[in-house]
């Protein structure tokens, strides 16, 4: 397998990057660590003739976990090894450590992880393989092999950091030809999309960085990942929980899930009612079950969807329990 030829641009500032984006509109991808993009290019999954590398833009590399300010080009290796990140936002450091392998984490970035291509075993295949079955909606084709009756792609969002950051109320800064905006991370992943455009990023927008609010007193967080093997594998399910208790009562609770559906999502509607209440084995079990029946994975990853749903309940329970136990 080989990469098709492309032209590499290496802007040294954001304005320069954005003007290149304007110039090559529709003909380019931003390149961060390349650990997701380039393997996909090798499989001829929507390759573009221009790559705009973000690596030479100094401010994207900033890393100040103490200020809750993370540039998009921060490497996962830096995040997993950061004591500051681990003490203020443990779920994020844990999630970073759980990504892929040490080699991939040495190149892979925060921004790339949040914008990682969604996955499906009919999609992450060589050109030859896809040709032999018939191409699908997400690349070169016009139908979905997973849910054939719909004109929609159900590929699974498989990044580890997004649920962890969502659980901690992260916001993302986006910079593009039309200006700069900052939105909650949850809004980066619209749930009503066609599955092919996977984020609310506008044409030419760069994900500039992530901000995390300072953790409130007593906030604890955790990330648990389900996968067949303890390294290498993408999440078949990722559960992040942030919890704050006040005298045995829940004062703040967030559960976010990844690796399960087309987008990562936070389960506020199911967790908000627990605020102000005491967590019991019973309420925890009920929460797990409620979340399990709310999620709709499809069969396009290694483990079957019914199993992944069951595990959602188990991991949610385990995550919350481990946060309550130590407190």
């Amino acid at each position: 397998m080989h990469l098709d030829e492309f032209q590499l641009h290496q802007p040294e500032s954001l304005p320069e990057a954005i003007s290149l984006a304007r110039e090559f509109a529709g003909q380019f991808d931003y390149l961060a660590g390349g650990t997701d993009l380039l393997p996909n290019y090798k499989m001829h999954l929507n390759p573009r003739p221009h790559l705009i590398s973000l690596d030479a833009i100094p401010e994207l590399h900033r890393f100040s976990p103490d200020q809750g300010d993370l540039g998009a080009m921060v490497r996962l290796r830096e995040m997993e090894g950061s004591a500051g990140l681990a003490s203020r936002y443990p779920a994020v450091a844990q999630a970073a450590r759980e990504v892929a392998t040490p080699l991939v984490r040495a190149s892979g970035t925060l921004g790339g992880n949040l914008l990682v291509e969604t996955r499906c075993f009919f999609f992450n295949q060589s050109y030859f393989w896809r040709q032999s079955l018939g191409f699908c909606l997400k690349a070169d084709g016009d139908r979905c092999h997973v849910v054939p009756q719909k004109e929609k792609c159900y590929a699974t969002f498989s990044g580890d950091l997004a649920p962890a950051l969502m659980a901690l109320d992260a916001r993302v800064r986006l910079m593009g030809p039309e200006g700069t905006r900052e939105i909650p991370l949850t809004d980066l992943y619209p749930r009503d999309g066609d599955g092919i455009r996977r984020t609310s990023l506008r044409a030419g927008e760069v994900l500039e960085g992530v901000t995390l609010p300072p953790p409130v007193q007593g906030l604890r967080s955790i990330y648990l990942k389900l996968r067949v093997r303890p390294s290498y594998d993408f999440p078949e399910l990722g559960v992040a929980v942030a919890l704050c208790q006040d005298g045995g009562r829940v004062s703040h609770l967030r559960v976010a899930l990844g690796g399960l559906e087309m987008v990562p999502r936070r389960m506020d509607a199911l967790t908000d009612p627990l605020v102000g209440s005491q967590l019991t084995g019973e309420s925890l079990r009920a929460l797990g079950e409620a979340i399990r029946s709310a999620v709709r994975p499809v069969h396009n990853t290694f483990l079957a969807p019914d199993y992944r749903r069951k595990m959602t309940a188990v991991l949610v329970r385990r995550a919350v329990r481990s946060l309550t136990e130590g407190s």
Partner: protein
Amino acid sequence: MTPAASGEAPAVPHRLIGARVPLVDASLKVTGRAEYTDDLRRPNLLVGRILKSVHPHARIRKIDVTEARKVPGVAAVLTGDRYPRTFGVLPMTHDETALAVDRVRYIGEGVVAVAAVDEETCERAFARIRVEYEPLPVYDDPKVSRNPVAVKIHERALRDTNLQKEVFQHFGDLPGAWRAAAHSVRVSARYAGVTHAFTEPHAVLAEYSPDGRLTVWSATQVPHYLHRALSEVLDLPMHRIRVIKPEVGGGFGGKSDPFPHEIACAALAMETGRPVKIVFDRDDVFYTNHGRHPTWNTVGIAADALGRFTALDVEALLDGGAWSSFGTVTTYYNGVLAMGPYQFPNFRYHGARAYTNHPPSGAMRAHGGTNIRYSVEVAVDMLAEEMGWDPTELRLRNFLPPHSTTVNEFRITSNSVRQCLLAARERSGWREKFRALPYGQGIGIACGFYISGSNSPIHFTPKFPQCTVHLKVDMDGGVTVHCGAADIGQGSKTILAQVVGEVLGIPLDRIRIAAVDSDTAPIDIGSYSSRVTFMMGNAAKRAAEDLRRQLVQAASDLTGYARESLECGGDRIYVRHRPQVGVSFLEAVHRAMEHTGALHASGSYESAPMGGTFKGARAGTAPAYSFSAYAAEVEVDVETGFVRVRKVWAGFDCGRPLNPQSVEGQIEGSIHMGLGQLLSESLNYRGPRLMNPSLLDYKIVMPQDMPEVECLLVGEDDPEGPFGAKEAGEGPLIPVLPAVGNALYDALGVRFLDLPITPDKVLRALEEKERREGRLSKPAPPAVMPVPAGGTDHAPR
């Protein structure tokens, strides 16, 4: 050397044999200096690529390559009609061609080969090739293939079915034994196909020179069969073909057939007159497969009231994929290797291997002995439970004794399976743990055996030894070893050096192992069936003994002492009872070369005739067998179904371990591979289509999941092995699967008979058990527990 005080000849201890010698090529490999096929460069090198079939089964109506030939940079475009002669690793079942001829039989089969200046140009050419296919009915289920079919995948399939091979064997009186049995069990199990997943993808470089000679460098386990196939298909005499095996990054059976791409590459080189290299992508490796057969088997075991096995009844159905490959052997092995370390007076086997439109299955480490062993060992466990016996006791009662013959006339020589079992039982704390650990934790035991070199070479004509070794010494005193045995990472070069060095009493740095090159190396039939240490070791030992004779004569001439009183050691040849008197190795070499300028020696190995006279009697016969018994301890997360293997105690009989470090490496690697098949690896087919042709989606076990391994090397010297050695390359894989399977039963009270045992299957089984029984509980402990140490021996029958 200090003289022996008593004046008696001191017993010379082995110096290199039994030592923990690091592999002789380790430094080259860890520094990246070892040269693999992809590292090789030749002037004017072209890149070869193969256009694969997108259809699982179709007639080829027409292939139009006119436009492809016009693409600038394309040097040759080759289709199957150019070299239509069939080949295959077994002489009786040639059904492969270098490129598809008239028909494609699986997704990924080669259709057109292109040589061009680079890969991009090859792909540009592919885009201009028009192949018209007429789809044919697709057979993806061996249960369908065994019945009458509308279209035969190969004309040579049996009768009106798609069966490639069928085997019936019956020894003794199985129905009678079954009727008379006091106890019996029957187990049916299913095994997904698995593949070798070696590190280095297949790679080949071929060059045809103007003097009409073809040179092929290939990542192969069996240079000799490649040599033959090239000659047959390309219609070139063998002496004009030179096959060289560079370093090989693992094979495990997946590089032991001659492959179509090797022949296609050579053909492209002949066509263009330029060197051509083909290196596979990982997905090509998956389509080429030749891995372990997807298998369905049923095992019945009967025993008398005293717990003696009376009958073994085996059925197996194998998914062979599109070609025969080693399949005839596989079909036999799945039955004849079922008896294993136990004695069965009555045995019946019905095996069948079906052609399907899957990529071909073939030989994979512990070929033919793995899946059937899991079923047998689980059945033994179940029988023990039914009888209320401890499973180790039941096994001890039924072991084949050393120096015996099986009902199907296997000649058994050295056999330390009893010691393996006792060691594993003792070290694992079996007595305290079996049926006694908390729910979710368990311990299991299983045994195994494997051939130490197939007794029958694949090609009988001409009648050559299975291995020959040449030694050549020049005036520099270096000993060059020429041998055709393929080191594919398993360490056979190191064994060669150890054996030669031991016999001659010289340090390893004097020994140079020449590359495997058919121009200079004598014949060896390849690295498969765990034959190399045994056969090559014997050949090398004989060659070195021949050389030693010449050198001792020279030393005798120089010292005036009789040959019988001389000894080789410490890089010298000295007088046994006066070790200070002697000559250096180099002095002896120079003396021996006087007036000839040459010093060489040869040795060979040919196994003794053995086996019965019935049809298929040769299958599974070997000059020796390795034996094994492993205990494994597991822990299961009962909420998620994840299995963790904590520790494996590996009792293994490889005779004398010539290099314990190397043996332990094989055992650990085997456990890694076996756990993959047991817990997570499978070739996932949806119909004819392989869903996971990548190392991300094909789940080999990660280092973090490796259990602690304690190797217990308890074998005694084998009477025929070199320095008493037997195989350790494949046998060590076999027992880990059933040991863990039985441990899972001990942990959970559930039998897992559908491999791999992925977490979702574990969880489903637990849910079913809870639904059925109302709770989750361990199986009951047996009434008969092992007798405390010392009193464990049951007299063999």
